[in-house]
């Protein structure tokens, strides 16, 4: 069964450093998403992406964040200058269509900012 994959599974970085989280969505899916889950809190929407454009973003997704689909398979989330409060599990998801469609989640990247 096709699945969403994410790399790395864990990343430790120093505050102020840039990180890039990578995702490979399901191959025929067209809509892509990033969510995050701070330890002990609920999963929060960050951004959705379609046709090489951001469709929607939350207030969390400020200028420090960016997303890109650099080729036909990868979908990345970049944090330019990490803060301690960026420590979280980051989930990538994808869906075939926008409406009435299941979002399939990857296993997540655990980011720890020191």
């Amino acid at each position, binding site marked *: 069964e096709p699945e*969403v994959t994410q790399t790395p599974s864990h990343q430790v970085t120093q505050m102020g450093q840039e990180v890039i989280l990578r995702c490979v969505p399901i191959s025929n899916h067209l*809509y892509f*998403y990033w*969510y995050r889950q701070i330890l002990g*809190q*609920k*999963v*929060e*929407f960050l*951004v*959705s992406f*379609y046709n090489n454009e951001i*469709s*929607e973003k*939350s207030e969390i997704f400020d200028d420090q964040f960016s997303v890109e689909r650099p080729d036909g398979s990868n979908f990345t989330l970049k944090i330019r200058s990490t803060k301690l409060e960026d420590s979280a599990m980051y*989930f990538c998801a994808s*869906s075939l269509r*926008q*409406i*009435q*469609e*299941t*979002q*399939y*989640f*990857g*296993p*997540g990247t655990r980011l720890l900012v020191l």
Partner: protein
Amino acid sequence: AQSVTQPDIHITVSEGASLELRCNYSYGATPYLFWYVQSPGQGLQLLLKYFSGDTLVQGIKGFEAEFKRSQSSFNLRKPSVHWSDAAEYFCAVAAGGGGNKLTFGTGTQLKVEL
């Protein structure tokens, strides 16, 4: 804006007992509703979803949920819990349109006693 409330943070049941996890949502139009399960260190797996039609939906692993518009609820049920069901369960709502973001509840941690 849509929101989801899961009033039970922790639930403990005995193996073989029945289970009901509560979920209440707030959204002005017809919601798209989901239940996801997260096992320790794992990503989010879809259990079931409701878009329209029959208000009682069947999912994987023997789970079902019933959409009750009058109560703004989408409670998850299982007639007989297995030890492997111990996990965190998230209810989520999608508004549709725009980026189709998911709004999650805070989750219910299920513990199963043998």
